[in-house]
């Protein structure tokens, strides 16, 4: 099958799964329930999944590292401290939340990148380590801000665990615009990613300005992560699993991989949200928990499989 037709099959699957997601839920399926409750949620799941998977794809390409993921790199945490800080400073308008999430997401990935980079490369060990460092540091900051500024709103804390339950409607609308747009622009820069994944000097020899492309792509990925975290909290593993599986199916060319990851991420998160909504109904499980439960074994499998192979 050609990559084009594989993408077609994938988008068809996304449609089918979305339809299933609309018809499955803890309440009896009726027109208003589907239209008013499930549709926004399925839409949110599609968007957030898309954002996380494409962000993961970009990070993996830029860092030349197939184990990169917004959650493990501390970018999601970065976005979360932005949101928590904005809340602590009473900047509760979605605009400020968004801006803060984006700024801190970008800041944290740049710092992680700087820490991990040695001799122009980003070795797997230092990358994972600096990601963990960043996550730990920011989580501590989040708790600090909480104990200093917040009294009752553990809602925000719980929200950081990742759930598609309820988003601010305005934030949702912003994400609805930002996520597809960022995905589209990332797609436009897909060849840059292909070339950059072979080293920055090589990229320049092939006529791509590595510094400029890196800035654009890091910004796009951070925008995607900030959007996802702002509306749904921190959900891990989607950004790791999806690009991996799709690279096996579509090959490593980012011009197919980015739209593929967008579709695959949407698919995966909607499926996981079906589980989150229905497994313990009427009680809800945060989808971030479902993702971690499903993702950890996958991560272990990846580590085992990759042993001995050259990164």
């Amino acid at each position, binding site marked *: 099958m050609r990559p084009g037709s594989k993408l077609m099959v994938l988008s068809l699957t996304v449609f089918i799964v979305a339809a299933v997601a609309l018809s499955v839920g803890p*309440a009896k399926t009726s027109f208003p329930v589907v239209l008013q409750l499930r549709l926004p949620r399925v839409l949110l799941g599609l968007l957030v999944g898309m954002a996380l998977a494409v962000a993961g794809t970009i990070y993996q390409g830029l860092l030349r590292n197939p184990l990169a993921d917004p959650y493990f790199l501390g970018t999601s945490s970065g976005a979360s401290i932005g949101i928590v800080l904005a809340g602590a400073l009473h900047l509760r308008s979605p605009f400020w939340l968004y801006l803060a999430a984006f700024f801190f997401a970008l800041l944290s990935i740049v710092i992680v990148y700087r820490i991990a980079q040695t001799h122009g490369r980003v070795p797997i060990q230092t990358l994972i380590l600096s990601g963990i460092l960043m996550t730990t540091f920011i989580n501590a900051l989040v708790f600090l801000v909480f104990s200093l500024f917040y009294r009752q709103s553990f809602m925000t*804390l719980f929200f950081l665990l990742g759930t598609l339950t309820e988003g601010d409607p305005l934030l949702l609308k912003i994400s609805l615009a930002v996520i597809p747009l960022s995905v589209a622009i990332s797609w436009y820069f897909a060849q840059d990613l292909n070339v950059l994944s072979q080293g920055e000097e090589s990229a320049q020899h092939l006529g791509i300005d590595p510094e400029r492309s890196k800035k654009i792509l890091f910004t796009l990925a951070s925008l995607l992560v900030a959007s996802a975290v702002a509306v749904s909290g921190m959900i891990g593993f989607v950004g790791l699993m999806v690009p991996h599986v799709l690279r096996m199916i579509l090959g490593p060319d980012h011009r197919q991989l980015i739209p593929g990851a967008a579709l695959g991420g949407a698919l995966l998160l909607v499926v996981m949200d079906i589980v989150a909504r229905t497994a313990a109904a009427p009680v809800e499980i945060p989808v971030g928990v479902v993702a971690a439960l499903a993702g950890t074994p996958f991560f272990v499998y990846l580590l085992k499989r990759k042993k001995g192979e050259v990164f």
Partner: protein
Amino acid sequence: MLKTETVNFERRSMNGELRRRGGRRFFSSAVLSSWFVVFTFRPLWAMRIVSLLPSNTEILDALDVGEQIVGITRFDRPSAGREMVGDFFQPSLEKIVALHPDYLVVGQSASSRVTRRLQELGFPTVEVPNPRSLEELFDSFRLLARTVHREARAEEIIEDMRSRFQKITERSARIPKRLRTYIEIDTPFWTIGGHDFLSEAIGTTGAKNIFSDLERPSAQVSPEVIVERDPELIISFDLKAAQLARRAGWKNVSAIRKNFVIDDQDRDRLSRPSPRLIDGIEDLQAKIESLMIKNAPRL
């Protein structure tokens, strides 16, 4: 999974009295040993008590032993002569030691290591479980009363509360129907189940918790199910009515349509297992009645 743990931990610490799973362990070894200490070595002068849960502080105040309290949490109302020692899950042990308490009043929680640590330090502790019903609420008054030797006062309070609950129940019996009620204690969609004293307390006003079938004190529930169970009354501790109405698909919920939303109650008074609860419930009933009068033609 580590993450989940931490977050749960924090949830409880900020509003512990509402969230903790209750267990009826009045005769647990810890409590027995503390009684032993109290009975044997009780000095003749006033006791020094550190209370690590706001609800217990309120109970002790109601038992007229407020002047014995020397340490409180950051969620208590600050008061002269009472030092803030942090909160139940993160108390400052140094501050507690410096206060020379005769004993500590703590909540009962499986996940808390604080109680054990305090016992190791040699402090007698009284563990008050989170009440799952009104009867258990009264039991917790009695437990504390025994510790401070105010059993008679406790019975007075309980009698008073019982009779006022009785009145509330009688009044609400005149309401033509029992209102299906959704109680949101926190966003998004955190509610209380049937195993929480508040579910029963609110029930006396004629409001029936739509999630009383949940066999746990609290949970995050599916918005679909809330809409499906179509509450006729919403009691919200956090969001205002206008914010609730903006939720997707909530326009047609009966409570929203008829504006049967109560969003202005004193959260602490209504949610803490303390004697003040009855004031909160009385106010709640008055509020429900006024809503009903306002909407009488449509009911």
